[in-house]
């Protein structure tokens, strides 16, 4: 579709991949990039996707159990999603795809890289969940009212408010409830953590960038440093004035950090 210079189109479809009907958003051209969303917002094509799509062919599925994707009955731990996405890479024949994951999606991405680094181009973990840092107690999102959760996640909650409608349509409400149920399956206890992951991160053998909101109040910077220390050769970019969700809190800085890292290694 024609538009402003550099604008790209995206498609959305419900499609059976690796045995699950999932909602797949796709757009752009260039090397493949699999974007794995966090626990809150799924199945929506946002401006940061659009910007990434200027440089990459962006695949942005809603995870099984999220958005308009189905709920497979086998889904009850995070590795299920890591294996699912490795299957998806095979089925879509995406070789050397970069994997960029935010929060819960970062956790999935890290698990994928631990299992099967050679299927991945490069890895970007954005305020990723999945590890526990001694001495850090994470706030309990499950015990908080929605407004409190927004305050924890976002530096600028108002920028994200439209994605969490106060009076959701029945369809939106159903998606919200289903997603929370899925998160409760995956991350209640251990809380957003795979106790085995931190030790196994030494297996990650692809170039890795860690991007972190300096003011992340859910997973503080100590987590970024622990990821960096555990992954051989990983670099860290800290985004100032940014909370747990850089793609929404600081979209420009986020996209710039990601494209710079992924492009620099293209040569």
């Amino acid at each position: 579709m024609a538009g402003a210079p550099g604008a790209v189109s995206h498609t959305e479809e419900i499609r059976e991949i690796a045995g699950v009907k999932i909602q797949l958003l796709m757009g752009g051209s260039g090397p493949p990039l699999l974007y794995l969303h966090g626990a809150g917002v799924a199945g929506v094509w946002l401006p940061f996707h659009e910007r990434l799509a200027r440089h990459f062919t962006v695949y942005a599925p809603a995870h099984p159990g999220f958005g308009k994707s189905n709920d497979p009955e086998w889904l009850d731990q995070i590795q299920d999603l890591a294996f699912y996405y490795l299957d998806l890479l095979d089925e879509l024949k995406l070789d050397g795809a970069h994997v960029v994951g935010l929060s819960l999606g970062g956790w999935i991405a890290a698990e994928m890289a631990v299992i099967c680094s050679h299927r991945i181009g490069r890895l970007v973990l954005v305020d990723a969940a999945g590890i526990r840092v001694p001495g850090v107690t994470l706030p309990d999102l499950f015990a908080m009212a929605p407004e409190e959760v927004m305050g924890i996640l976002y530096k600028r909650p108002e920028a994200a408010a439209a994605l969490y409608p106060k009076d959701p349509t029945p369809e939106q409400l159903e998606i919200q409830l289903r997603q929370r149920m899925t998160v409760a399956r995956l991350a209640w206890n251990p809380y957003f953590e795979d106790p085995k992951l931190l030790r196994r991160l030494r297996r990650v053998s692809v170039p890795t960038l860690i991007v972190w909101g300096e003011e992340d109040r859910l997973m503080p910077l100590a987590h970024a440093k622990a990821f960096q220390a555990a992954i051989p050769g990983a670099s860290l970019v800290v985004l100032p004035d940014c909370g747990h969700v850089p793609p929404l809190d600081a979209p420009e800085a986020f996209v710039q950090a990601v494209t710079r890292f992924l492009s620099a290694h293209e040569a």
Partner: protein
Amino acid sequence: MDFYYFHLMPWPYLPEDFDENHRSAWVTFSNQHYDPERGHALYNRYLDELEYAEALGWDGICVNEHHQNTYGTMPAPNLMAAALARRTSRAKIAILGNGLPLRDHPLRVAEEIAMLDVMSGGRIISGFVRGLGAEYHSFSMSPAFSRERFLEAHDLIVRAWTEPGPFPFDGKHYRLRYVNVWPRPLQKPHPPIWIPSQGSAETAEWAARHRYPYLMVYSALAVIKRVFGEYRAHCERFGYTCPPSQLGWMALTYVAETDRRAREEAESHIMWLFRRGLKMPLEFLFPPGYMTLPSMLRQLAAKDKTDHGKRTFEEMQEQGYVVVGSPETVVERIREAHEELGFGIFTGLHHFGTLPHDLTVRNMELFAREVMPKLRPL
């Protein structure tokens, strides 16, 4: 009609600033507010009240399980049942119930209930529950697996009680090579199983399929009527007609000489239960996955369970959460409800919140003397 006397054993001594400064009586309300010295006196008083119910003619006495809260201080109801088993001789002892998904090892429930049944000479009624949503916060246990763990633990326990051991059990959550529970329960085929519920559609169907008595708690009569209707329809679908003995109604019940006196004496203690004892944020009450998606949607649409704290005394009386008045009034209210709902089990909460011992005893005596005999034949 059969009469069951239900006690929650609340912790009534809240700090003065509770209403202003504490958002919950559950999960996070500090145990520094519990005083074991007073607790000692309180446990013994509450057990006395349960034992007295047997002496006054109740058919059964009931205890239950809740964790980390001021509403009910019985995290281990089987302990209370054990104490009662040795101090009573006739009444049924109904544990309403054990929170099955909260156990890492359901055979512990099978063992304890079997022990109690043997000790008590076959007087145990074994309620099975999932606990409130808040328990899943208190136990840091994912509510998303609550229902499947409940169903699987139930299957395991019933098989452990009825099939010759040892046998293997291969579930999703529980895998056991040697299921071989000693002792076996005294009652045949096993102690009656009751299902207390707030009316989830899935639970009503499941209980009807197993012919388990279904006990509605903290619900408006209109809701109970709908749910009992669904339960009865399920019974028909499963090939039998629901007898009254399979339906139970639980209500806060208080009797005094006159309607006016009854309300004066009971109101503040009833309000304590709804406004303080049950005070908790929605996130504690309905954690994600605790209910199925259809039930959660129905719940949100009804907004019924979410506003206990906002209901006035009059509304609670009108809607049937509480039955308060003179003996004549209370007889009439229960008779009307019976006509409407057709239950065969009346479970009264004759102590609630901060109600003192003397009023509790008088309430019980008046109910036993003036109310129970008139309703017995129903």
